């Protein structure tokens, strides 16, 4: 396998990791606020904060990994995306900063306030919406380079049905992933009341998720037919994705094996995300950046891959330790520790 393929695969895995852990986090923020508004906060908010407290920094790091890695492997992306994304990127940073720091301030510092809960819920939706713009832009047609000046066509972006369908898909996916994780976590904690509530959320958000996936598929077909055709070649990946979606929903519906249900959700997104990613290649930004022309020098690529492997060897045991102490420690989950 060539370096550029290894590089983009590793980065895509990071982005997938971020997609899952960040969705759980963002969605939890929304549910926490929603529960407060509807007067259910005493049921689930303790559960949510028990999960999020030890892992919030970890979530952020996945994202940093991705963008440092993509600039490392494909430095041209810094030039094109960096220039075009100045405004949406800055807004995303500010939202992430508000969310991260407020989270710490409130949890380690003082009691929860309404303003904080609102911001926590609102940023949980606004961040995925703004980050998903990068995905839309990668399809081409929005970023233009004229006489060496890179610019972003905001009018085209805001009037494109594809752009809005991606935002919609991002939002409902976040809520769906988060809800199914909370179902599993509530079951682990043996918290029946919370379980019933989040199970309702999970079942509710399943339909919009599959509808949004389909509309995004169709909108992409109109926006970038070339990519759409390549996606059809990988139809079996998307087929598997739908199959895992059905398994997940069946399990949640019958109320058994919630752990397997969440794994199915992860697989559902794994196949959809990698099917999308694989068919997107060779372009990182259509038509300006493709992985073969803009890959970094061989020595840097090898060094990055070595560091990546060494880093994983260090981090995976650490993460397992963290999870054993918190996420999957039955006493901790149940709030006894």
């Amino acid at each position, binding site marked *: 396998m060539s370096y550029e393929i290894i590089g983009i695969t590793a980065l895509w895995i990071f982005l997938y990791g971020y997609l899952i852990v960040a969705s759980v986090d963002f969605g939890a923020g929304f549910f926490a606020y929603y529960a407060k508004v509807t007067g259910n906060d005493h049921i689930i908010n303790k559960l949510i904060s028990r999960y999020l407290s*030890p892992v919030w920094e970890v979530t952020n790091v996945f994202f940093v990994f991705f963008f440092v890695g993509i600039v490392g492997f494909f*430095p041209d992306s810094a030039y094109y995306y*960096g220039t075009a994304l100045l405004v949406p990127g800055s807004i995303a*940073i500010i939202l992430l900063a508000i969310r991260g720091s407020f989270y710490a301030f409130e949890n380690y510092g003082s009691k929860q306030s309404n303003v904080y809960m609102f911001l926590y819920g609102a940023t949980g939706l606004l961040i995925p919406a703004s980050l998903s713009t990068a995905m839309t832009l990668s399809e081409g047609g929005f970023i233009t380079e004229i006489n060496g000046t890179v610019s972003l066509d905001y009018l085209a972006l805001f009037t494109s049905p594809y752009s809005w369908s991606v935002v919609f898909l991002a939002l409902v996916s976040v809520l769906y992933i988060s809800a199914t994780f909370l179902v599993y976590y509530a079951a682990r904690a043996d918290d029946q009341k919370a379980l019933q509530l989040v199970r309702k959320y999970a079942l509710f958000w399943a339909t919009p998720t599959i509808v949004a996936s389909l509309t995004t598929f169709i909108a992409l077909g109109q926006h970038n037919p070339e990519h759409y055709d390549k996606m059809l070649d990988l139809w079996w990946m998307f087929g598997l994705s739908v199959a895992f979606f059905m398994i997940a929903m069946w399990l949640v519906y019958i109320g058994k094996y919630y752990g397997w249900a969440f794994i199915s959700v992860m697989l559902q997104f794994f196949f959809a995300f990698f099917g999308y990613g694989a068919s997107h290649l060779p372009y990182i930004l259509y038509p300006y950046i493709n992985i073969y022309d803009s890959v970094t020098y061989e020595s840097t690529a090898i060094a990055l891959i070595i560091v990546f492997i060494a880093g994983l060897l260090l981090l995976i045991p650490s993460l397992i330790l963290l999870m054993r102490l918190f996420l999957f420690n039955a006493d901790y989950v149940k709030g006894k520790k």
Partner: protein
Amino acid sequence: MFELDPVLMSRLITAMTLIFHIIFATLGVGVPLLICIAEFIGVKKNDEHYRMLARRWTRGFVITVAVGVVTGTAIGLQLSLVWPNFMQLAGNVISLPLFMEVFAFFFEAIFLGIYLYTWDRFKNPLTHWWFSIPVVIGGALSAFFITTVNAFMNTPDGFTMEDGQFTSINPVAAMFNPATTSKVLHVLGSSYLTVAAILASIAAFSLLKKRQSEYHKKALKLTMTLVFVFSIVTALAGDISAKFLAEHQPEKLAAAEWHFETEEGADLVLFGWLNNEDNPIGAIRLPGLLSFLAHGDFESEVTGLNEFPEDERPPLWVHYMFDFMVMIGMFLIAVSLLYIIVSRIKKWDEHNKWMIRLLFLSGPLAMLAVEFGWIYAEVGRQPWILRGYMTVDEAATRSPQIGLMFFFFLALYIVLGTLCVIVLRKLFKGKPAEEELEKKYPTIEEGDKE
């Protein structure tokens, strides 16, 4: 609305982010070491005061870590958003240390999470202490990796270049460029020094508020001892840095010293101002000392600024930044030495009011010195972003919205800074350590149980 020069605004936005971030980055590197030392003493001496110190420092630390994380994410992304041309070129090289920095930080964050939530969870108190070690190492490694990037910008190395493109790259050689050793030593030493000084100031502040408690006296003794140790380390690292500059980046040293003509036995110029002919007025001149600083020999030759074309000279106001930084460094050595001497002499009271007031100054001054040092390091590199290869003008984004973004980020940092102070005050106000100690450890024996 904002007809401001994009290059100027790019520089301002980055300067602002770094000035804000460096406070929290310094704390992030230094506090884990202090916590680790305090807990170790606490466990070894079985002294609950020290363990409470570690606990309370950690509690405050997580708040500042959060701000460090989010501002660090901001500067990481701003590198690409504000300096896209720089990253397109240098990304080929510096992505390696940046990537490793993220790993190091990840490592630190994981173990900080574990450390934070596992007090009293292990039978052997030393087990919990062990979890502080990876936090200390992770913090130091983060500082190391990110400093290699800054070093690379000052003395780029490890590549060959043709027609504005790199032709061959050795990313490891780029990391270990000539500036790396001196910079890393200086950054690590000054971070530990600054944090020790800040925590000493907190202890001094508490003692000034008439809490003549053992707890704060012990805190002061520990932190002031460390201030002394690390102020010596930092001064030595500073000396190494000056010798490095004299050899590899002479224009930066010359600008800091207002040293225009290449000469032997050069004087060290302290403060003063420049007249129209660029002659220092009202300055203190220390004969031959610049030569000594640059090469360890009072008679040696020091390259002057006139050797460099005018458009490649850094702004001359960095002189003040350099002088303030050095003065504060000297002050910290002196004040910590004074404290140690006074506390050794039985007849004298090291906790007298004026002594404590003096000690209180060390924290804020140390943090100011870090800021001055970084301003000198960054502005002293101008006009280059990658010395000898790319100027900041060439590197900056052309996007006119950068001016508006500046105000967005300004608002963000004001909010974050204010909230951070409010939250920290809330966290400790009305909760003195003595009360907490009594609650936690009615007797030493019970303190050792789970």
